[in-house]
């Protein structure tokens, strides 16, 4: 497997793409293969599409309810930020069936989101806003009896975007341990949150069909299934996600270790050479990514440059694969050689796209790893460890932290804090913004450096002493030592970057986590937040139980059959 010194660099983490192990992919595999039955038991909407919908979900191990409230929202008040207090849609995922009394309770609380309270029967609370660019357009087209233009859809990719999906016990909801131990259908990290977004996608498509039919019962058409599959759910992700990666190092270690294991297995599978079938699949996958990247619409200059570069390099790769296929096979060329070539010659994002594509080729070697993505975030301090050993351990495992010169102004040019506005995490400029004294402890590199320096000072007087005695003298370092000793037992987990440097790019943190969620089409809006698309290309509920080739990554525009061509109407 690749060393942490390579993998845990922030810019590489920020170049990750979704893979077969991403949570949306594993959720969809599970739902389709287990043929989950999802039906609306309440669909009480007025002619404009406002009201209540309840879906009953019969999964393999249990029954759940997805409850959604659709509200009128003045476009002036539509805001994707966490600080918003009104949304077009609000929803909750609950255990079991929902009776009239519980529905009323939910109606009184779910639309308030953070300002409301729910109970331990609820797993996830979420909300969504309409896309101003596509929703009305699509409904108008359907109302007029036409399918929407795929090129218009490609510009956005969704009808609604979610701005938050809260789980893990927030606001009175079920504790993650309860979900994990009692409800096997959602026992993987973020499975319930991803399902809530998947159901939002389902509702959004049903919603457009419904409103069009209400407006023109005789002429309206329903969205074509191929177009439906091309719709995802939009997502805006800001700094709220960043502290999670720092505060759950064992979980991040687990995710990255599984992804690296998958990559290592794929590379090993090709160590003796490649055959025509696998090479053809790889070339087709390459062509698809080239098209996918070409269809991304973003106003971010840097992302556009990066997408262009990756496309050029992948075009080079595809051309080589098509032209040299026979030689590649005859010469026993291996994936390891390709990976090495990419590392030496191509952009870091191209390298990670190729890695995702390699993982894609070997489901039989990779998919079992999806069961290994959860871990208890349990850190332990080893009090009997000698300080000599601890010092060696820091020098070995945290050499990257000791290499940072924190005396330089720019090395401490930023700080992270929580705003009083919904406790939103924010990034401040040192000595410029207020709140430095309340900064969050996310500067792991600096914390390690300070701890190391104190150990060195203490050891001049007590060279033979152990950790237990050191923390009697310096109790404020117990947290640092606990983390250092715990993480030293794992390979990945700590991000090797100074997260308080003036030029830190938090967007890489967001992209890393989002890649494990399985999103696509990154559209950075600044260095602090990014828009993206979830479930674009995924099967529909009507596809569940049918033969399924799990191949919806890097979605591309559908080629419509003549019956669904927009011009046919």
């Amino acid at each position, binding site marked *: 497997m690749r060393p942490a010194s390579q993998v845990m660099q922030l810019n590489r983490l920020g170049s990750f793409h979704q893979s077969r192990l991403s949570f949306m992919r594993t959720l969809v595999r599970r739902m389709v293969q287990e043929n989950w039955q999802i039906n609306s038991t309440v669909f009480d909407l007025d002619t404009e599409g406002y009201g209540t919908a309840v879906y009953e979900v019969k999964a393999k191990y249990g029954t759940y309810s997805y409850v959604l409230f659709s509200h009128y929202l003045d476009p002036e008040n539509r805001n994707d930020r966490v600080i918003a207090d009104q949304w077009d849609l609000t929803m909750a995922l609950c255990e079991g069936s929902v009776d009239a009394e519980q529905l009323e309770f939910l109606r009184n609380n779910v639309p308030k989101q953070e300002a409301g309270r729910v109970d331990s029967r609820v797993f996830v609370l979420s909300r969504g806003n309409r896309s101003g660019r596509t929703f009305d357009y699509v409904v108008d087209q359907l109302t007029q009896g036409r399918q929407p233009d795929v090129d218009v859809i490609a510009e956005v990719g969704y009808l609604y975007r979610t701005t938050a999906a809260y789980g893990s016990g927030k606001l009175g909801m079920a504790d993650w341990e309860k979900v994990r131990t009692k409800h096997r259908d959602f026992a993987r990290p973020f499975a319930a949150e991803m399902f809530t977004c998947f159901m939002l996608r389902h509702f959004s498509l049903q919603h457009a069909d419904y409103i069009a039919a209400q407006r023109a019962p005789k002429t309206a058409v329903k969205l074509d299934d191929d177009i439906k599959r091309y719709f995802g759910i939009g997502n805006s992700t800001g700094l709220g996600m960043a502290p999670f990666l720092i505060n759950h190092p064992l979980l991040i270690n687990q995710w990255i270790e599984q992804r690296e294991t998958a990559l290592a297995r794929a590379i090993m599978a090709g160590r003796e050479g490649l055959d025509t079938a696998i090479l053809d699949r790889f070339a087709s996958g390459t062509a698809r990514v080239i098209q996918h990247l070409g269809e991304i619409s973003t106003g971010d200059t840097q992302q556009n440059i990066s997408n262009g570069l990756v496309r050029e390099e992948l075009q080079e790769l595809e051309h080589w694969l098509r032209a040299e296929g026979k030689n590649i096979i005859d010469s026993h060329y291996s994936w390891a050689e390709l990976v090495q070539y990419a590392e030496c010659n191509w952009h870091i994002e191209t390298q990670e796209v190729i890695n995702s594509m390699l993982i894609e080729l070997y489901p039989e070697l990779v998919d079992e790893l999806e069961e290994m993505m959860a871990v208890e975030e349990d850190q332990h301090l080893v*009090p009997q460890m000698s300080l000599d050993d601890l010092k060696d351990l820091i020098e070995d495992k945290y050499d990257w932290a000791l290499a940072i010169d924190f005396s330089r102004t720019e090395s401490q040019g930023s700080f992270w804090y929580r705003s009083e506005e919904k406790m939103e995490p924010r990034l401040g400029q040192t000595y410029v913004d207020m709140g430095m004294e309340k900064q969050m*402890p996310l500067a792991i590199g600096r914390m390690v450096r300070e701890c190391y320096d104190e150990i060195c000072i203490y050891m001049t007087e007590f060279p033979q002493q152990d950790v237990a005695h050191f923390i009697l*003298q310096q109790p404020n370092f117990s947290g640092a030592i606990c983390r250092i000793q715990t993480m030293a037992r794992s390979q990945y987990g700590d991000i090797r970057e100074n997260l308080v440097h003036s030029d830190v790019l938090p967007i890489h943190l967001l992209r890393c986590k989002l890649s494990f969620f399985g999103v696509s089409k990154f559209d950075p809006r600044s260095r602090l937040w990014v828009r993206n698309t979830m479930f674009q290309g995924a099967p529909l509920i009507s596809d569940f139980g049918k033969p399924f080739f799990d191949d919806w990554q890097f979605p591309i525009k559908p080629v419509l059959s003549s019956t669904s061509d927009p011009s046919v109407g």
Partner: protein
Amino acid sequence: MRVSRNELTASLKKAFEGLGFSVGDYQDATAMVIWSEMHGLNGLQQLQDALPSLYSCLCLHAKLIRNDDNYALLNGQSSSILLCGSQTVRLACALARQQGSGQVQLDNCHNRRFIAQRLVSAAQSDSALVAYWVEGDRAFKLSVESGAKQPIYSEFASTAISADQSLMIFVGNDLAAVEAKFSAAINPGPPIETTSPDTMINSYNDMLEQGIEIDDNLWHELDNLVARVLVESTESSRAGAGD
């Protein structure tokens, strides 16, 4: 009102941070309170009782007074177990690893019932532990076998009323050996009440399923402490969130 363990954890960490606890301390203190509550030992009521003194505690930790081979004496400086408990148990475990067994006496320390979670946590690293203390006319003992997830919690009638604020920790490789050391040092007689591991497990499972009941006033007080770590929002600070 009811809250989940995850939600209470997030709130307590920030509340303890608001009281001035350092990272390791607020993580440990949070774990101690929640463990006690969920296992039926009234952690939240204990916290509510302890808060007035925590507001003015200056976050003092235990000081080492004496360390002879496998025995150490600490002074808790009138602080709380929430701040001194981890140090004490860790020192006892380190002594046990180096000497075969360890005994630490922590004097002058409050809120000793919170120590249970620290013992259980240490027991996961191949240590067996016993803790003992006296409160007025009652004595208390917690015993945890190596690797066990729950202790046995016993209450005794004390022979004499004591205002002593001491806590004794005994550590070794297995509980039988630790109990023998304990009995040789202290003999509290037969317990008048014992809380079994099963009772604690049932309490834990009920709270995991239904949520944890918390007094509205305490929740409000925690909110006020959480507010201490939040920063005022301004137009400029909104730029730090991406606006």
